[in-house]
């Protein structure tokens, strides 16, 4: 049965799904009156795929890639970000965020690495939105379904963007589509990392492999199975519990701020309109 779950995570027609994602970017941007996209390129596979899809949707002349390393970012991340931009032939900027991050933390020399990592993620968001205004573009998101579901992101940092073509793809599905659209192999094959401090890897921090994480998430979220049913499929009970707990504890990251209701109709509760209203 575990094999069955793994099989269900396989995207059968990658060309068709790619076409859907491309169509989504094109229509959502054009309807809102935009032709251009800004994508933060980290050197990892998620942002590489988002950039590839954006180019397929909008053309290379309409996509701006921005790499925003900090002084501790690995040399290979910087190189891989450049490789994505060069492969696609898009406008590319490498903006070192060390000066502003270090200037701020001069006042707080004891800041821990998570605090600094969050600040870096938000600094990058701020630059992407600065460029979005400058270039009359929207920010294309790079969060995948696995990280969205377990909250492996910085609130208002890498989690902030305008449209997200890959947010319904689990990480293992991002790899499938990335390979299909021609993301360079070394980017697909390398160990996923937020690269917020030296030696950090996603799987090390999360505590299980993406294959296993995605299978448990798929059983819980897509198939709506109960914990005991997932365990009966042959998954380790403490791991299943841990994943389900991560999903629950990170719900706040997937929602906008909550408003205290006092009137008959409240903006976040019963004022229900799609964002594409009139578009």
């Amino acid at each position, binding site marked *: 049965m575990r094999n069955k779950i793994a099989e*269900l995570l396989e*995207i*059968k*027609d990658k060309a*068709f*799904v790619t*076409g*859907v994602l491309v*169509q*989504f970017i094109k*229509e*959502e941007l054009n*309807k809102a009156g935009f032709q251009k996209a800004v994508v933060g390129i980290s050197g990892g596979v998620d942002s590489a795929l988002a950039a590839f899809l954006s180019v397929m949707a909008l053309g290379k002349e309409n996509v701006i890639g921005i790499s925003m390393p900090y002084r501790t970012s690995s040399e290979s991340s910087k190189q891989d970000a450049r490789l994505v931009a060069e492969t696609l032939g898009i406008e590319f900027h490498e903006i070192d965020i060390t000066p502003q991050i270090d200037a701020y933390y001069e006042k707080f020399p004891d800041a821990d690495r998570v605090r600094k990592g969050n600040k870096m993620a938000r600094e990058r968001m701020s630059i992407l939105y600065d460029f979005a205004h400058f270039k009359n573009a929207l920010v294309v998101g790079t969060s995948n379904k696995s990280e969205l579901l377990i909250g492996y992101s910085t609130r208002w940092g890498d989690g902030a963007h305008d*449209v997200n073509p890959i947010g319904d793809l689990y990480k293992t599905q991002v790899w499938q589509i990335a390979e299909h659209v021609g993301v360079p192999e070394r980017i697909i094959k390398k160990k996923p990392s937020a690269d917020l401090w030296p030696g950090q890897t996603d799987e090390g921090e999360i505590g299980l492999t993406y294959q296993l994480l995605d299978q448990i998430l798929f059983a819980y979220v897509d198939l709506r199975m109960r914990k005991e049913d997932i365990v009966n499929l042959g998954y380790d009970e403490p791991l299943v519990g841990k994943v389900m707990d991560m999903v629950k504890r990170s719900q706040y990251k997937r929602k906008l701020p909550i408003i205290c209701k006092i009137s008959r109709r409240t903006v976040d509760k*019963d*004022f*229900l*309109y*799609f*964002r*594409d*209203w*009139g*578009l």
Partner: protein
Amino acid sequence: MKVAVVQHKSVLGDFEANLERTVEFIKKAIEQGADICLFPELNLTGYNVQDITSEIAVTAERLAESPLSALSEKISFIVGAIEESEEHIFYNSAFCFSKGKLIHVHRKIFLPTYGMFDEGRFTGAGKEVKTFYFNGIKSVALICEDLWHFSTVYLAFIQGSKFIFALSSSPGRGYRESGEFENAEIWRNVGEFYSRMTGSYFFYANRVGVEDGFVFSGKSFVCDPFGNVIAEASSFKEEMLLVTVNPALIRAARVSLPLLRDEKPEIIFSNLRRILDEK
């Protein structure tokens, strides 16, 4: 006899823009010699109308006063909109125009209110399946979820309906098929089955376009009375199918498979009575 099936890309919440586009398509259908023209569910309003419902609703009388009535001197057609009743209840309705006037309104009976669907929150449920004549052919109009309940098709069948018009706004989902979403494949199965089992033509008009990341799955199609798909549209493009239909094939199908002759609605009725009484 020629029938046009329009795969409309509606603008969410812009009645005027959608009406204008609808009129353009009807004129094009007339030019191309169509006798009948079918539009998707809620093509005049967009699908995810939520709180727009009460703002965009029209009464049947008002819609009858629009340019649509005059257009129907030359062609019969069905459009979808939010209907406001005399009692100020809103319905997801199919408006059938022919011979210069509005001849029939079908109110959607089954309102999906689960998963991504929330129709029961915003609209009331219709109560009747009635037939009408389009160009001398007894016909029925059903809306999307109506057709997932075979009871509606059965009611049309025993009334002698020969054309089944299915209006749909089906958001794409499922990535385990080739060249299309899973729901598009299911819809085709539904059409093949119903057309064969009722000896009727089955016309399926689905939306294309995107509403907040819902990518409508297109693939509108027509089945002949033997269960064969005789025309099929693409996944994403706004387009119009034009098919030649031959009512003699309905006769041929029903001669070789006299299911309607042998149907026993009185047995269904007595059994339903008993089952309901026993509950």
